[in-house]
């Protein structure tokens, strides 16, 4: 396939759709942004795309909890369609609020036990600092399961969120996610990019096991709190005036991986 089509789905309050579409475009995909109401009216439109992305923002104001209302809409109206989308070997990406949405929609984690009435495997809670924070973090990629992080060892990206603290249901769940290679991205120490850290602010939100991003068992569904679309150009790096950073930025690779997956 020459150029995969990427559907960027926005809801009221989504606000990173433009730069996310721009990043997919730069990476070689053909992005299109649509309002969630279009997908609810016509769920078949997913058939026309190879990549489905929920971008950052404050869907429905993050009222009640971040990503909850948009997540519930997906859970109640689009779950089967997205299950099929994944089974067709296509890719699903949630960035920041998109991660929160996917985590709360049941798309990201195996939801069988939730349907049976028990608690979901994990959630994204309020930052341990108790406030919204915008800062750059060092990230380390774990394993090779996640399609989006192939060939990447570490990245330097910004986070900007209030509710990004990854909390697993319990230690066993965390261990099994790790064992299946689903913990794809962790916050690393600023002075050692290989070392996951609990230390604030390198771990900006107090996430358990420094989890910054996870994928599903197939590696084709991924959610992450940091914003790769905010680092696709040298001048976005906070220290580019000191000669740091690369022309493409370290986030572009995430989008290129998605495109290359279909080559």
């Amino acid at each position, binding site marked *: 396939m020459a150029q995969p089509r990427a559907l960027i789905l926005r809801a009221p309050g989504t606000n990173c759709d433009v730069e996310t579409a721009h990043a997919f475009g730069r990476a070689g995909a053909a992005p299109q942004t649509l309002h969630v109401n279009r997908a609810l009216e016509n769920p078949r439109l997913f058939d026309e795309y190879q990549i489905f992305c929920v971008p950052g923002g404050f869907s429905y104001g993050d*009222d009640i909890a971040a990503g909850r209302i948009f997540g519930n809409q997906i859970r109640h109206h689009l779950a089967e369609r997205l299950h099929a989308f994944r089974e067709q070997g296509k890719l699903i990406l949630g960035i920041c609020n998109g991660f929160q949405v996917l985590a709360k929609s049941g798309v990201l984690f195996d939801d069988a036990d939730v349907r049976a009435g028990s608690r979901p495997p994990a959630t994204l*809670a309020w930052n341990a600092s108790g406030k919204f924070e915008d800062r750059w973090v060092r990230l380390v990629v774990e394993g090779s399961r996640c399609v989006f992080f192939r060939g990447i060892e570490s990245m330097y990206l910004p986070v900007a969120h209030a509710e990004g603290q990854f909390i697993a249901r319990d230690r066993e769940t965390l261990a099994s996610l790790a064992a299946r290679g689903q913990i794809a991205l962790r916050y690393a120490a600023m002075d050692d990019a290989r070392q996951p850290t609990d230390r604030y602010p390198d771990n900006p939100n107090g996430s358990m096991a420094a989890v910054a991003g996870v994928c599903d068992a197939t590696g084709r569904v991924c959610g992450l709190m940091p914003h790769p679309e905010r680092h696709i150009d040298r001048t976005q790096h906070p220290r580019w005036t000191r000669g740091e950073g690369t022309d493409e930025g370290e986030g572009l690779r995430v989008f290129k991986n998605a495109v290359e997956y279909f080559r």
Partner: protein
Amino acid sequence: MLWEVDIYPAEGQTDLAAARLAAEAAELELAEDLQARVAHGYLIEGRLSRADAERVAGELLSDSVIERTVVGRPGDAALSESPGGRMQLVHVLPKPGVMDPVAQSALGAIADLGIEATAVRTFRKLWLGNLAPERLDRLCAKLLANESIEQVVVGPLAIDRLELGSPYAFQLKHVPLAALDDDALLRLSRQGQLYLSLDEMRTVQAHFRDLAREPTDVELETIAQTWSEHCSHKTLAGRIRYRDENGEKLFENMLKETIFAATAEIRRGLAADDWCVSVFKDNAGVIRFDDRHHVVFKVETHNHPSALEPYGGANTGVGGVIRDPLGTGLGAKPVCNTDVFCFAPPDTPAEDVPAGALHPKRVMKGVVAGVRDYGNRMGIPTVNGAVFFDPRYMGNPLVYCGNVGLLPVDKAEKQPQPGDYVVAVGGRTGRDGIHGATFSSAELTSDSETISGGAVQIGNAITEKMLLDVILAARDRGLYHAITDCGAGGFSSAVGEMGAEIGAEVWLDRVPLKYEGLSYCEIWISEAQERMVLAVPPARWEEFAALCQSEAVEATVIGRFVPTGRLVLLYHDQQVADLGMDFLHDGRPPVVREAVYAAPQENAIAPAVSQPPLSFTDNLLAILGSWNVASKEWIIRQYDHEVQGGSVIKPLVGVANDGPSDAAVLRPVLDSRRGIVLACGMNPRYADFDTYHMAASAIDEAVRNCVAVGADPRRIAILDNFCWGDCQKPETLGSLVRAALACHDVAIEWGTPFISGKDSLNNEFRFQAADGTQQSIAVPPTLLISALGQVDDVARCISMDLKEPGNFLYQVGLTKDELGGSHFALVTGRPGGRVPRVDTALARRVFASLHAAIAAGLVRACHDMSEGGLAVTAAEMAFAGGLGARIELANAPTDIEAAKGDAAAHAHATAALLFSESNTRFLCEVRPDAVARFEALVAGVPHASVGQVVGGNWLEIVAAGPDAPVIAAELSTLKNAWQSPLRWK
């Protein structure tokens, strides 16, 4: 059926809200060791069974990984079970009718579950232990709730219904004016919250006498809104007789003859190269950016609402100013925010806070949270700002909110056409903000809250984001002829202004309401947030309505523009108002004001210590740790300053991403390298000396901040925002006119046009002191200058952090003995001195030369020299870059001469070289191999190499002569002094 859902942190989870509550109670001296447990909850009304309520609680309202819920009917014992032993239960709820965005969203999401609910209200449930009963009231009033928008229920909630409002029975009201004498007219003006002057009331009276009828209530309200200071700027655009040491000057229209006149002269001079598009006309100023886009810029203030309810006031301040660019031309896309605040010092002892004023720390935290929550949710990066502290902002904080938008070049003009529908889009109308426009014309008093509670509002950013999304889509499809925001004055201002040239008829009964019971008059003047008014041609209405519906945005035809020259209001076909547009817009009697200015006597500043060995290290640390200079990282990081992906120079820069940038740079168009530059300037301390020099210095600071990062000084547009005390006092108004004269002079000399502005003229807080006397605090004259610069290629921009050891440090610009109003004077308690002036002709050359050097790539780092002078500038550059520096004062360009051997004069000169705040100065880092070319470019202006970047972690500044360093400090010590004041949790 009404259900209550309480949501607590699950066993083992941290109760963040409780920890914060206890910390804040201790901080505000309300309770030493408060034990607290905090839940948040929902009241849900509708046809719900217990199973439904539990499903809503489990599937929607709570997160079972981290939370537990209690579900019951209000009054159930289970809801009153303390989670932590003997504790006092308190509920805090938004007052009925106050915007509750979470409740609105929850209502929609419950429907999505297939469950029928009719109303939702949120609340906080607080369990308080270790609190003496007699301290509860004070804790509630000072911390737990703001009674202008919230109510406190002590004990279990006893509530049985949520539905609001009751049917409205129409009754047309007239206000008898004809027989009133002057006293009665004034009483009516005040008690009716019209805030019109006697002269204005008489004019209205005469107008209706001529018509041989009495006005209706809504006619009178419409006139009061249109003629309010907030909407018409009658004082500054009025007749003023001004006197100062140069004699007397009569202004017919003061703003037009000073600030507007400067812009007009600049534009005439630029002729074909004029890059201004629309100035002082539309909702924001418009200038050229590139072939495809203009940029627009507007800064507003929201002071009085923020004094009463800091969160809501700042929140709706941001929401309001975003609607200005959106209502400019046919609608600009907002690309960044800027926010500047003035507060009393946050460490003010609780007992020094007068009755009726909120503690400044609470004000500050509320304002920051309000800006954060609105800006972040809108997805607009907040990239620039400033915070200024002075005790005179007690009770009357200043909150300036600005927004820059991007406007396609073919969308700059708007013109409603006769026959177009008047269309209201966005949020519904409620009793919110009634009398906001006239309220801002009144001074604040300690009982403002009880009079004007209706003027306080909470915003709903997502409603505005939805509005923004559909409006930009409708704009690009050409579905309307004109647009304006519904701000102060509500429909009254929006429709009145838009239809001024044509005439309009409005059908008030069609306006969608939040709840029943609003009178026609309340509908017309409500200032409910998140609404815009559009002129939609009937032929495009169907397409426009369908577009709005597709994104669930409400749009309603509420009237029509008709070529009558009249404003006619109808309620269910009954005429309730009929006003001539000419009387409404041109009938106001001119305001005539006296203004005088007498510059205070210039006194010499008390001399610096003269005992050798001279050391100023402690002074430097004190300035770095003073509220105004200290790091604002605590605020900046709470704002998303990178959303939209165009961030180039961030507000925090340097090796550890924490140094203070002079200006922000961003690329508003992602496939272009062209950038905009945002900066500001303000120094109310100089106003105590001379408001002319204060204003000139503010402009200098705003422009030099732009130039420091690489902006082209020939392409900088500026905005003025005057916040002054009571301008009925000739001295107060005189100090403002004097500032406006400086604006005129400096703008013309530099070719830096003002493109928009706003004033807020009654910033005084009146209260009853403990001894029973009436007292008043006026804010210092506070002029904010906001600057919008441009760069061709953002890759040419530079930051302020030192880059490499071995590079030379150049001071560009001249240091004078100008310590008056300086931060050195502040931290050492020295009155007097000479206030910094601007040598406009020299400044113009300095800006041009330095820009040439930056554009040629010869400057590695550049920082503007402002509060704290050379010493603070060098310290900030050093610790931001993590590199030491050595500076020799003997080389600094200066006109200060100290007689040889005079120890006192030497000490004073040294203090001035270190800390003088003379304008138009920069400290630049230049590579050795670029020195020759750099020197050639700045040859025509004062400059000198004053030192070098060195390895290590010390800043060392040496004076002339054999002294040891006058400043020597480790970078970590300097940085810690700078970061510690606002290193808040």
